[in-house]
């Protein structure tokens, strides 16, 4: 599997980093870890299904993780960094999340090459380091990018002081292909020719963040279904064959993706606050063609405690054009009839499988709004104890009339974040 290849190459990089330190420079090792238990309360509406990885039976794995970062200063502005992570949600397979070389070109310019985090949002850079913020995880409505958090590429950074402001501009060019776990399926995702511009402006207690990226996305599993539907329709009756434009609406094949994000955060010691907005648009994509998410957070600190309140909103609607293709061509009914009339068991089963995938892929719109109360207690210089309660209101397939479902899961998570 891919992960094993990754961890093998991770070991090679680490071995190289360690070997180089043995000769001269200093190797810094830092680590972070999270240990969480979570449990969904009152989830009668969706028995047996998981919400954010949790069910009504408690789970110790999903948000539990361990990370080690190795940084080696090679001198003359060159640093090598590798980060190994093992997450409970992936069966603790070690993964080389980061492996990059950083070169300080001048006082203001630096460049990073290799596998690195994409600084999409305010907390993206340290998204996995629970110790760095007061939530258990940053709001997934905005932060869950389905495996595209990291990329392989080159990023230039320009850091400068403008009076009392500090400005950081990042330019990214990257191409990555990764396997992401969605529920019970692994999806191969290619995100190619990603060009990104990220800007942070910090003034006193305030930080402003802006993101703009475009890339070409390919999800092969979606294409298998889309192409399968096209071929089946053509076989049933050549008059039903899909045009290229129609096929485009049923596949994710080098579809252009645009990410936009804006955020503002403030830390005044006693009070902390943050708000972020994210939009993902995928051209001619069957799903998530227009995904929007935002949250507002405020926290109050006293002694060793931080009490936080977060409201998060998410909306990912069906692509109307895709739904039009499905209905205009009467695709589901036509294919069902073909399956019923098929003399061959194999083709009948194949057609049923394709039709069965339609609700999951093409009619998968979702809206949600969640309130989260979080409490962080810094009981030890290197460890924080956290308790978090999330009440979500989810509507799936809100536009499809039939099949709409609403549910309101409540999730409790409690655990510890460490850094060392």
């Amino acid at each position, binding site marked *: 599997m891919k992960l094993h290849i990754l961890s093998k190459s991770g070991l090679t990089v680490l071995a190289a980093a360690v070997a180089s330190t043995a000769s001269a420079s200093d190797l810094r090792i830092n680590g972070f870890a999270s240990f969480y238990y979570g449990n969904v309360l009152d989830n009668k509406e969706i028995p047996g299904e998981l919400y954010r990885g949790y069910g009504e039976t408690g789970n110790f794995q999903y948000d539990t993780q361990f990370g080690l970062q190795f940084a080696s200063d090679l001198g003359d502005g060159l640093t090598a960094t590798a980060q190994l992570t093992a997450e409970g949600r992936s069966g603790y397979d070690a993964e080389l999340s980061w492996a*990059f070389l950083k070169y300080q070109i001048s006082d203001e310019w630096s460049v990073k090459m290799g596998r690195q985090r994409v600084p999409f949002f305010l907390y993206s850079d*340290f998204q996995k*380091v629970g110790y*760095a913020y007061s939530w258990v995880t940053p709001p997934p409505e905005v932060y869950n990018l389905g495996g595209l958090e990291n990329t392989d590429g080159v990023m230039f950074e320009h850091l400068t002081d403008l009076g009392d402001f500090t400005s950081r501009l990042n330019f990214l060019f990257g191409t990555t292909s990764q396997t992401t776990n969605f529920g019970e399926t692994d999806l191969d995702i290619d995100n190619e020719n990603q060009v990104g511009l990220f800007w942070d402006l910090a003034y006193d207690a305030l930080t402003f963040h802006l993101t703009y990226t475009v890339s070409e996305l390919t999800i092969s599993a979606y294409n298998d279904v889309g192409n399968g539907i096209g071929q089946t329709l053509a076989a049933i009756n050549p008059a039903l064959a899909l045009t290229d434009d129609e096929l485009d609406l049923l596949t994710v094949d080098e579809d252009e993706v645009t990410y936009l994000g804006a955020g503002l955060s403030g830390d005044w010691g006693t009070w902390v606050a943050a708000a972020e907005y994210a939009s993902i648009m995928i051209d001619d994509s069957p799903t998530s063609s227009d995904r929007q998410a935002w949250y507002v957070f405020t926290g109050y600190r006293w002694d060793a405690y931080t009490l936080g309140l977060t409201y998060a909103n998410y909306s990912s609607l069906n692509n109307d054009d895709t739904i039009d293709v499905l209905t205009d061509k009467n695709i589901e009914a036509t294919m069902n009839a073909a399956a019923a009339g098929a003399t061959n068991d194999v083709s009948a089963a194949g057609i049923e499988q394709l039709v069965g995938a339609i609700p999951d892929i093409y009619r998968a719109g979702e809206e949600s709004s969640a309130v989260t109360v979080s409490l962080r207690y810094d009981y030890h210089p290197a460890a924080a104890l956290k308790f978090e309660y999330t009440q979500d209101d989810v509507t799936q397939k809100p536009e499809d009339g039939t099949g709409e479902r609403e549910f309101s899961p409540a999730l409790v998570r409690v655990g510890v974040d460490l850094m060392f």
Partner: protein
Amino acid sequence: MNIVKSVRVVFSTVLLSLFSVASIAEISVIVHPSNEAGISDADIKKIYLGKSSKFPNDMQAEPLDQKEGSDVRQQFLGAAVGKSEPQMKSHWSRLIFTGKGVPPKSLDSDAAVIDAVAADPKAIGFVDSSAVTDAVKVVMTY
């Protein structure tokens, strides 16, 4: 009622004096005697938060920290940086894990900080004012 009020006043005065005895010792921020950079409150804060790696005269700055949990550190962080120890740790965790910075090197005592600052023109440190010697230059007190 008057008695209650005066008892309260006496009580809070006693509390106040207890607090002041417990926590108020003067902190000095020190640099090498050759350091001519005019260092302000804001510069000290920026250097210790990793937002700047230089003195205002563009010379490289090497900040020195003291032991976690020590009175002098807690007081310096509160007064000069405006953060508690956990907040400082959380702040640095963000920089460490993004490769954007390395936290100030931590030394064990006022004497160790004074020795290190006296030996390094780029160093900046903080100590209890009572420990300051001629080998270093005081640029700020809190």
